[in-house]
């Protein structure tokens, strides 16, 4: 195992009560890469993603076996600091969910939680982060405006900016474009390609073309099992498994 593996999932099983949602999942994700997770509805994509920063802990009756290593450290280990984990592993949701605060306070949110920076340092971080998601030009005069007034695309960018501001370096994105129009979707995809320079991104998508366009690696899940994972061009041109091919070419079911 080389150093550039940042996420390493080992024999991971997750149960919602009696329901076995993820079965013996093993996969590893390289640093500064984009990994697409695809598969039919209900196959466990969101469940896996939410496992990576332990958001599933919020749901009653969730049970987990196996382990996930983030930068080599086990996240299910006893005494693991969840605050530190979630600071590092940020999440972008399907519907943009900026807080009902100003643009500025949204970006500064993580800093206010986790750091004691001076006013100037916070302002500096906010600016950097908005620049990183290409929002600074549009919004630099609207920092006090309520974030909920922004367009869907701007809101989604803002949600990424607030993760960048608290120095998260892994972004989990659960269908981040499904509430956006095609143009906005294209813009977010471009942003993902830029962010890849600095961040590790795991994206769940139902859009095969999107997976093909943005990702370096693709993982195909079916009924809670990882069927196949590999370089995206390989998965899309010559998958090793027939199920994968059927799904990708739309001959599924």
């Amino acid at each position, binding site marked *: 195992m080389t150093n550039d593996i940042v996420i390493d999932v080992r024999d991971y099983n997750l149960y919602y009560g009696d329901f076995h949602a993820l079965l013996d999942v093993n996969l590893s994700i390289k640093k500064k890469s984009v990994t697409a997770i695809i598969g039919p509805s209900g196959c466990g994509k969101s469940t896996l993603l939410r496992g990576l920063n332990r*958001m599933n802990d919020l749901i009653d009756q969730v049970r987990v076996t196996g382990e996930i290593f983030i930068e080599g450290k086990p996240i299910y280990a006893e005494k693991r600091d969840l605050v530190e*984990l979630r*600071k590092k592993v*940020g999440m972008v*949701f399907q519907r943009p969910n900026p807080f*009902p*605060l100003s643009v500025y306070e949204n970006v500064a949110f993580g800093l206010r*939680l986790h750091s004691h920076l001076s006013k100037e340092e916070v302002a500096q971080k906010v600016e950097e982060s908005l620049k990183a998601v290409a929002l600074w030009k549009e919004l630099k005069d609207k920092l006090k405006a309520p974030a909920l007034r922004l367009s869907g695309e701007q809101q989604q960018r803002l949600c990424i900016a*607030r993760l960048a501001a608290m120095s998260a370096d892994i972004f989990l994105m659960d269908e981040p474009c499904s509430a956006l129009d095609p143009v906005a979707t294209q813009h977010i995809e471009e942003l993902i390609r830029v962010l890849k320079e600095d961040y590790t991104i795991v994206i769940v998508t139902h859009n095969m073309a999107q997976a093909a366009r943005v990702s370096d690696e693709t993982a195909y899940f079916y009924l809670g099992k990882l069927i196949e994972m590999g370089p995206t061009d390989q998965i899309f041109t010559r998958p090793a498994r027939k199920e994968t091919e059927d799904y990708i070419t739309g001959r599924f079911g």
Partner: protein
Amino acid sequence: MESARKPWNRALEFLIERAIFFAGIISIFFVILIFVFLLKEGVSLLKTYPLKDFIFGQKWYPISEPPSFGVVPLLLGSLAVTMGAIVIAVPLGMGAAIYIAVVAPGWLKEILKATVEFLAAIPSIVLGFIGLVTLVPLVKQVFHLTTGLTAISGSIMLAFMAMPTIVSMMEDALTAVPRSYREGAIAMGATKWQMIWRVLLPAASSGMLAAIMLGIGRVIGETMAVLMITGNAARIPTSLFQPVRTMTATIAAEMGEAVQGSDHYFALFAIGIVLFIITFLINLAAGFFIGRAHHK
């Protein structure tokens, strides 16, 4: 078959529409009627008694000769008891609402909600009675007073009465905050309390203010309990540990003995107008906050 029933449906719809319209008109009509009556009777006081002396008068001596009908001590009495009640009920109610809305596990949540509703179902006279025999002696003892019939006793009692309104409305406001905000904050490493403080409360603030307003409205109009336990001394209060008399208690206590058509009788209606205006403004404020909450 379908078409044969259509005329019937239409007639029925017409009737229902009219009935609803009529019900609406009737209720508006009665409100206006009550208001006009209140105004007419109250304003009659001014024929013999100057408005200035009513509004700024510091003495309420309705049966001395000549009588004074100064509303100030009663107004301050009401304010003292109400403010006291709110100061007690808001933090408690807020704590309870937050606990029920986001902290308590499912089963406990239902029990607590039912308990709060049960509290709302206790008639105020019963609460007043219980207060009289339990709370009043306790207040006397704890604060070393000559009597426990004080503003603070009324405040504590009324805090209990305002609690159901405050808790259930605040709980609604908190529950109405989209789950995605809460998840977003937790996913960023916020602890539960940070999430509550930085996201949930700001997001629910309008609804919570409305809850406080309606709580005040509930308290300021309350009569029987305050009549029983605040001591009924129409003096300007200087602390919460004195007997006071509220506007509502004054009307309730004196309406029976005031001769119909006398100045005293009209003065009680004038108090009614003051009370009406205050409650109206409070409801207006509550409406404003509710409107803002829905707007967000």
